[in-house]
Every structure is written in C-alpha cells, then in structure tokens.
C-alpha cells in the first residue's frame, strides 16, 4: 500500500523539501528522510560561505598561502566548476564572492575572523588563479570562492544518492532545495515554473524529462540580481527567469548561470544534454 511522507526544513539558506512515496511504514519513511537530510547537512557544513568553520571558508582563508587538501565532495564541485569556467571562458566563475560581499549578498567573514588576510586594497583573483592537483587546491593569489548555487545542486544530488541502494529502488523521491529539484522517477512527472511576475501568482507546467531542474531569477532578491557577471563585477539586470533541465542538479544549477551569462549557452547546454526554458515578465517562453 503506497505511503507518503513530505518534510520541509530550513537548510542551505532556503527551504529543503523531501517527498517520499513508497510501500513502506511511516517510521521507515522517516528514517529514509533523516538520511536524506544528513546528506544535505554534510554539504552545508562543507560548502557554506556563511559558516566560518566550513571547509570552503578554510580554503578561502588559506589556499593562497599554501596548498590545502580538499574532500571528495569539494573536489567534485570544484571540478564541475572549473570545467564550466573553461568552456565559458570565464563567463561562469565561482570567484565572485568579493562582488557579492560588496553588494551585501554575502557576509564579510574576513572581518569576523579579525583576519588581515585581505582589505579594501586586496585584488582578488579569478578562476585562472585556481590550481587543483589530485586532492589539493592552491590559489596563485587571494580568491574568494562562493559555491552557493552549484553547491546547492550538489547537495540535492548527494541526497538523492542515499536512495541508490537496492532495497530503496522503489522509493519515489523528490528533493527540492529552494527550486533546485531532482526526482528519482521523473518519467511522466511535471514541474511548475513560477511566472517571473510574482503578483500574477501563476505557474507554468512543464514535463520533467530530465531528472533535475534548477531555476535562476531575480524576483526574490530585494536588492541586486543574484547572478553576478564576472566580467562586469556586478549583478546582471535581467527580468527573465531561466530554468535548466539536466541529468544532475549540480549541472542544472550551474547551467542556469551559463544560460544568463554565456553567448555560447545553447552549445554548452547541448553538450550536457540539457535544456533551458526562459520566461519573461509577460509570460512569454523561449527555449534552447
């Protein structure tokens, strides 16, 4: 007899929902949801910019002084990030934290730690200054990495992976971390994309023909657009939303930035077997 559990917790700075459908008891579904959230928490602990004790913060503080050993999770996310930086020739660049701090989107943790590692005169580097060899990372000059988007997608992928064992193969799960969504059984499922004009209170329904989808847009940001142009060193101005369907959530999230920032977006998305859906303020839809 099919049973369902829906759970929602604040994590990763947003709301992380877990929906489980299976022929299992309430207690068993709760146990499965606990394992799912543990996976999300482990990524938050590793990659949170806000947390001064995270692995990311340690890397940001130290990797320009000496090579830092990185975890497998960090390695996976950085590898994807560097690949996209190369493919987009820097249109995708995770080293945009200094601009985000300046715009008030991220905390200035350098101040909090009383560190004199950087000050107003510090010239921060870009993806070119990142060197990764085996399991070590080194910055040729100070770099501040933000993995907020791509890390969120990775957290969803890692959480879905907790359901990979043989005895959980029939569990139908959907994990939605603030719009970064992935399903174990996407066939015949639908997703709803918000109309960028929020006061219209409507959604567009699309079939879920990839396992994951992620959306980027400015309609929830009170001040600047959440996407930073690495070349202009400030937020973009774009009233559209873009949703990318891809086989993993990490790819989907990272490719939403590519969809906004890169002139070669269509080609790059195709190489990942991904699709983008753009919706403008009037509800007009275009795809690539």
């Amino acid at each position, binding site marked *: 007899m099919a049973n369902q*559990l*829906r*759970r*929602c*917790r*604040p994590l990763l*700075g*947003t*709301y992380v*929902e877990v*929906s489980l459908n299976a022929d299992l008891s*309430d207690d068993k579904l*709760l146990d499965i949801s*606990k394992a799912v959230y543990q996976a999300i928490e482990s990524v938050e602990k590793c990659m949170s910019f806000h947390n001064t004790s995270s692995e990311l913060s340690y890397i940001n503080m130290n990797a320009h002084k000496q090579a830092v050993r990185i975890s497998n999770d960090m390695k996976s996310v950085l590898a994807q990030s560097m690949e996209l930086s190369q493919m987009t020739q820097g249109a995708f660049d995770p080293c945009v934290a200094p601009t985000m701090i300046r715009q008030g989107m991220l905390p200035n943790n350098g101040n909090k730690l009383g560190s004199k590692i950087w000050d107003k005169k510090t010239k921060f580097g870009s993806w070119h200054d990142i060197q990764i060899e085996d399991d070590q990372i080194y910055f040729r000059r100070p770099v501040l990495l933000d993995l907020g988007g791509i890390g*969120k997608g990775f957290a969803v992928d890692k959480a879905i992976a907790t359901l990979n064992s043989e005895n959980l193969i029939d569990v139908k799960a*959907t994990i*939605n971390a*603030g*719009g*970064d*969504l992935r399903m174990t059984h996407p*066939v015949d*499922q*639908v*997703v*709803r*994309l*918000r109309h960028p004009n*929020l*006061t*219209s*209170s*409507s*959604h*567009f*329904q*699309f*079939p*879920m*023909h*990839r396992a994951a*989808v*992620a*959306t*980027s*847009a*400015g*309609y*929830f*940001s009170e001040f600047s657009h*959440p996407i930073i142009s690495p070349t202009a060193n400030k937020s973009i101005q774009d009233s559209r*939303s873009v*949703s990318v*369907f891809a086989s993993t959530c990490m790819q989907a999230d990272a490719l939403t930035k590519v969809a906004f920032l890169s002139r070669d977006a269509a080609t790059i998305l*195709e190489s990942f*077997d991904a*699709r983008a*859906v753009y919706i403008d303020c009037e509800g007009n*839809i275009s*795809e690539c």
Partner: protein
Amino acid sequence: MAMNRRNFGKVVCGAGAGVFLPINSLHAETFLTIPQAMKVIWGDIYLRPVTAFLTEEQVESIEAASDTHVRNLELNLWKTENNDWFIVDQVIGKHENIDIAVGLDHNGQVVGIEVLTYRESYGDEVRHPKWRAQFHGRGPEKILRLDEDIKNISGATLSCRHITDGINRLTHTWHQVLRHL
C-alpha cells in the same frame, strides 16, 4: 531513460509553451503533522502540553532582545520531564506565512526545526490587515489548511531568513519565560 535532444524539444514545445495555470493567489503546502514533528524532534519521549500566555512586559522584553515582532500572546508548548521543549509557532514574512515546530533543549539550544505548513500569497490580499489577522492567535488545531496543494515548484531561491528571525524570537522567549515555567 535518456531522451535525445530532438525528442525533448518536441515534447517541451508540444506542451504549448507549458500549461498556464492561473491559481488562487494563496497557495499552501503541508508537510509533517504535529505528532510526526514531535517524533522527529523528540522521538518517543513523553511531551506534556503546557498552557502559557505572554504578558505585555514579556512581549516588550522579547521584542527588544530579539529585534522581532511578537504576534501571538498564546504559546503552543509541550514539555518533557527533562525540561526540554516542543513549540509550534508561526513565522510571517512579506509573502509567506509558515507554521513551524521547534525543539529547544533544557539549555535553550535549538535541536530541531520542521516546517509544518507553508503558505504564500503574492496577491493584493497580503497587504490588507484583515488577511493577516486570520493567522493571529491560532492554535495548532485551528491552523489554516487549504485544498490547494501545488507541489514541485522550481523557482528562484527563496531565503528562509524569516525562520531565522522566528527562531531568534523563540530562543529569547525561552530565556525570558520558558525556563522559568
């Protein structure tokens, strides 16, 4: 099942640029029930219901300490034999109204946060005091549940900072009121 790019394009376009769904301007999603949240946060430990109302002085004190607004004078509380707490509360943001369950241990530390019901509205109603008023002073048995149940929404990231403010208010409430109960 992998689908090649051409088929995917046909399917997405064939959906008529998506199906436009104008909905009521209020939408809600429900998650754990209160008993489920109790189990998640405190397992099988016995939770005794406790009645408490904030006095004006306590409200002022909590608001000053937490820099938040106290909307409900009635607290929905349960207590363990070890003086740990299970609290059901509401957090109201600009467009969101959220019922949460929070576990605080006997030192006032947060041990769990669960969203029970999430409601949002982007219509004009959200600006009217009367709409907001329907959520004031609601106990768990009167929590508004709606038939509208739209799942699987992929949108831009909504910050959960209102939850953080709510938790801050509750930990100050513990400090000023609960630990003396």
